[in-house]
């Protein structure tokens, strides 16, 4: 049912969203690697004044097993206020939750009982295949034209290309394939946009056969995983430009564009370089625009080509091969394995998850071309196994993985599982399950919240993947007004 006034969680601009009230609940994707029990959405109490702070207070099982719930997102968000296609009276109440392995999509209502969300619709893989020609849905974004879903694989036995499907945000029906002209783009992973510039960006991982049974060494050393960014015209749905980072930079995954719609830059993370096992962060921007990208070039009508510049290098750490899983023993080093990054809503701070070395990094990116490291916290890690201060005797496996930020940028939520088969390769003794929270200082620095450490049996044998915050967070909402 449409509202009479805009949903109170919608903000016209990122500047206003920063003043949003703190979240009280967080939703987590939890999955059973053995596919014996159903995957679930776990609900965490994140209200520090609550008696059950940091505990799992709600749980919704899926009706099937083996979905491998992964990234998920809201049905509607602040982009609903965009002036050219306004639908401000749609409610933010449904989570769109994809099963990365099953290709199912669940629509889950969080309004009737926010602590006990209810599945209201299940889209079977056949619908995604028939309407859009895709499988393995991965990332969800609420956008001006509806709900956008990226997918890694093709349908009807085709491994690829992966791409983006569009869903109606009222009926949740699959409207079709988003791309009218995908150009040379074949591999898919993440996507987001610059709404103020009608630009959509996509990144590359691999097709289902390249990732579902784990990282394939020959493909990695043969430099076959994705290493390019693609720029599309968001309005015309046409591919415009490919920016290749270089084939040594394997797996260009997470995309975090500036939230300010007048800006034309963003950050992309690369998991590993096959030359030295380092990870890297790249800045995409307009060529010739090194001034913090205020869009001056496009205002003057002299729009340069898109370009990408490496702005952060994170080296591998030498290690005793005896402490390493078989896949890493030949190298005698732990790669940082940057698997997620997140940018605060004010575009000033970037967080980087090093899932291999077990380190969460914080950078001041006020000048996006010159990030300055402002914080580091070690937890878990292939060799380090650093415990949480709430349980100092419990070595932790897995590392900081999905990272989510509150809209005011003061709270950082992190989970530890990457992807079932990859967890097993890098943490063969079991990745465990834990979620942590850090308090961030707006002037730089962060510290673990010792009161917040749901782990192990709290998650009923599931692994935990991604967090979404009630009312929106730094990686869910996009804006049309500066």
């Amino acid at each position, binding site marked *: 049912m449409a*509202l009479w006034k805009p949903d109170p969680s919608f903000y016209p601009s990122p500047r206003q969203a920063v003043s949003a009230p703190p979240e009280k609940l967080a939703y987590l994707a939890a999955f059973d690697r053995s596919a014996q029990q159903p995957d679930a959405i776990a609900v965490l109490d994140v209200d520090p004044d609550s008696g059950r702070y940091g505990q799992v207070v709600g749980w919704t099982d899926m009706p099937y097993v083996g979905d491998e719930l992964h990234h998920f997102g809201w049905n509607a968000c602040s982009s609903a206020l965009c002036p*050219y296609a306004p639908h401000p009276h749609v409610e933010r109440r449904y989570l769109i939750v994809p099963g990365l392995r099953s290709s199912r999509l669940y629509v889950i209502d969080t309004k009737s009982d926010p602590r006990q969300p209810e599945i209201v619709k299940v889209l079977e893989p056949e619908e995604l295949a028939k309407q859009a020609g895709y499988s393995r849905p991965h990332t969800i974004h609420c956008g001006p034209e509806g709900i956008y879903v990226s997918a890694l694989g093709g349908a009807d036995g085709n491994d690829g290309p992966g791409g983006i499907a569009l869903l109606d945000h009222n009926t949740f029906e699959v409207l079709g394939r988003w791309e009218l002209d995908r150009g040379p783009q074949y591999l898919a992973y993440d996507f987001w946009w610059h709404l103020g510039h009608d630009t959509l960006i996509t990144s590359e991982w691999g097709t289902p056969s390249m990732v579902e049974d784990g990282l394939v060494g020959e493909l990695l050393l043969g430099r076959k995983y994705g290493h390019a960014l693609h720029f599309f015209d968001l309005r015309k749905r046409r591919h415009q430009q490919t920016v290749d980072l270089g084939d040594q930079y394997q797996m260009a995954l997470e995309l975090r564009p500036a939230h300010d719609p007048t800006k034309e830059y963003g950050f992309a993370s690369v998991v590993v370089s096959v030359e030295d096992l380092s990870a890297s962060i790249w800045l995409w921007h307009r060529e010739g625009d090194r001034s913090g990208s205020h869009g001056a070039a496009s205002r003057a009508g002299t729009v340069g080509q898109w370009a990408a510049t490496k702005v952060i290098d994170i080296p591998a750490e030498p290690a005793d091969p005896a402490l390493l899983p078989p896949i890493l023993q030949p190298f005698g080093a732990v790669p940082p394995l940057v698997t997620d990054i997140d940018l605060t809503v004010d575009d000033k701070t970037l967080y980087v998850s090093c899932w291999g070395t077990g380190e969460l990094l914080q950078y001041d990116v006020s000048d996006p071309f010159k990030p300055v490291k402002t914080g580091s916290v070690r937890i878990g890690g292939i060799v380090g196994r650093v415990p949480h201060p709430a349980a100092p005797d419990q070595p932790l496996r897995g590392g900081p993985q999905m990272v989510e930020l509150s809209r005011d940028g003061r709270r950082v939520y992190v989970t530890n599982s990457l992807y079932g088969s990859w967890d097993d390769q890098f943490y063969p003794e079991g990745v465990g399950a834990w979620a942590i929270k850090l308090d961030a200082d707006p002037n730089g620095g962060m510290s673990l919240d010792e009161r917040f450490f749901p782990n192990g049996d709290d998650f009923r044998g599931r692994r935990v993947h991604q967090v979404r915050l009630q009312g929106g967070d730094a990686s869910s909402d996009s804006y049309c007004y500066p």
Partner: protein
Amino acid sequence: MTGWQWLALAGLGAFHGLNPGMGWLFAVAIGLQERSRTALLRALPPIAAGHAASVLVVAGLVGVFQSVLATRFVAIGGGVVLVGFGLWRALSKRHFRWAGMRLSPVQLISWSFLMSSIHGAGLMLLPVLVAGPAPAGMAGMHDHLAAAGASLWTGLAATAVHTVAMVAVAGVIATVVYEVVGLSILRSAWINLDRLWAYALVGAGVATVAVAVSS
């Protein structure tokens, strides 16, 4: 047309100008994106042109039909269309596609034309347009043509009055929001005009038919 009809056309223009979906919000967004009030003001003429074109279609059709048919039939037929369209607006949940933030002036005109048309901006004027007497007698073929010509001019004038009022209100709101109030106003003041519009369309249609039948 009588004085109150002109007034009503202007009033409805102001009502349309008030609706963020009809263009003032887009003008504000363009101004903010370009960081320039000039850009905001430059967006207004295309928005007005698209709205005028949408309204002119209805005003022109009413004028032409009125000159060859009895006003009463035009009113009843138009009223029924209006009710149907209003119900469709009330029940349908479709929303706008294909547009983006960076439109050329021609694209902005098309956007405004489509936005006004799917919202039934022109149709909402129907009760006012059919309220007056038919512009000429019903005698020969020659008279018909003359009457059609005259009513086209009336339609043009009606469109102009309506559009000037619309763009004046839209321009004032856009400028005030851009310069003074700020966008946070959207969070509290953006009431669901789509629903209100749908009810207004149905109401206007029912009234048009009722008046025509009882007269």
